[in-house]
């Protein structure tokens, strides 16, 4: 399998926002313009996360998703505020390839099976938001609420629920470009055969290699592409020259 480099766009519904540790959101651009640029650069895949959707009690803007699918020829996944099978259907109809479910998957695992039953067992990405690099505390609602779940049961059980992929987010590392939480990637990887997307803190091609060597199949990158001159192509080329299997572009 070729390693996927997934630029990740955090939005408040209209604009791109930048957060740190799942907090202090500030506006940094127009979500569609950013997506279009990544599309023109032929990135492997895009991830659009609406960090304010749950507060607004809505899913990510359907208009925005339609604009994405009408203008991009690459896959994109969306997340934020998806609580029902109806919400999921709207996302798929608007052209999303996969949907990310966080809080709802933890509070109501049946929702995931229900979505998988109709849309297949490749359609749902479950997001696990780890609070800090020490310990295995999971939080939901943009890091605001701790949940008590037994990860040794929950993670191996995801495949039977029909989950297609696991997004490992690190609240502590998010937006900091301080390196990914490799221990969490190793930990989750040891408990599942599902593909893993490592997210939070990635700052270089070396970080991507480390995440892949720890068991990730893909990396989600936000701040690095948003605030430095590093492009997805730079990371791609770095991986290529160091012997990693990446897409031919």
């Amino acid at each position, binding site marked *: 399998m070729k390693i996927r480099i997934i630029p990740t766009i955090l939005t408040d519904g209209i604009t791109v926002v930048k957060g740190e540790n799942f907090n202090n959101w500030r506006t940094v651009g127009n979500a569609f313009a950013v997506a279009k640029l990544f599309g023109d650069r032929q990135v*492997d895949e895009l991830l659009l996360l609406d960090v304010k959707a749950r507060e607004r009690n809505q899913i990510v803007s359907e208009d925005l998703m339609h604009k994405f699918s009408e203008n991009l020829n690459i896959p994109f996944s969306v997340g934020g505020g998806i609580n029902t099978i109806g919400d999921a259907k709207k996302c798929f109809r608007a052209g999303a390839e996969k949907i990310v479910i966080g809080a709802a998957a933890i509070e109501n695992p049946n929702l995931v099976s229900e979505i998988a039953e109709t849309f297949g067992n490749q359609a749902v990405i479950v997001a696990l938001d780890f609070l800090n690099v020490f310990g295995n505390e999971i939080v939901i609602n943009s890091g605001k609420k701790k949940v008590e779940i037994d990860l040794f049961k929950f993670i191996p059980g995801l495949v039977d629920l029909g989950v297609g992929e696991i997004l490992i987010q690190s609240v502590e590392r998010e937006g900091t470009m301080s390196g990914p939480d490799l221990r969490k990637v190793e930990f989750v990887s040891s408990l599942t055969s599902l593909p893993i997307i490592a997210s939070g803190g990635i700052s270089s091609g070396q970080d991507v290699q480390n995440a892949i060597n720890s068991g990730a*199949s893909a990396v989600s990158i936000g701040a690095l592409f948003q605030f430095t001159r590093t492009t997805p192509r730079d990371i791609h080329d770095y991986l290529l020259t160091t012997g990693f299997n990446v897409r031919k572009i």
Partner: protein
Amino acid sequence: MKITVIDLGINNLSSVIKSVKAFTKTTDILSIASHGNEVESPDLVILPGLGKFSSGMLELSNRGLIPIIQEFVVKGSKLVGICLGMQLLGNSSEESEGISGLGLIPGLSSKFKSEANERIPNIGWREVSGVKTEKVFRSLNQNLDFYFVHSYHFIPTYPGDLLAISGYGNSNFVSAVKRNNICGFQFHPEKSGRSGELLVKEVLDWARNEN
């Protein structure tokens, strides 16, 4: 040329339509059919797929599309199945035991077996290699990468229906099939960037009998 995209209510239409529109001519008529009675002698039928085999067949059946698709294929319309749409062309799938497929390309869909360094579902980009000197879909003979999202893969009964394969661990799986006027792609041409655009153009040329 009349192009009909089948709407199953659960599948992803906007990307498919966008990718087709890029290569249509002003004389082409592109329509969406969510029921059998909306299909009017198409030259090309596109069956995009998403979801479970049983859900796909149930939607085709409820919408009166099964006899219509079969009828137009016999009359010579070209048919393209994408992702689940390719698997629906076959006879059955391990995903939904006891459910019959369209039976247009003999074969069944089977779940990936775990392989070293591979994960299930198969999500991401893989190289597609044509297995015969294919004049119609030349993009499949250029070892280009295409985007996949699936856990089941189609195994055609007849080797002659094999169009392209892709690697998975130490083995290969079938990534494209073709039987006369019917073909199927396991990957998503509409999501496969520039490689996908090449193929979509070739599909339209094929439907116009121009390649």
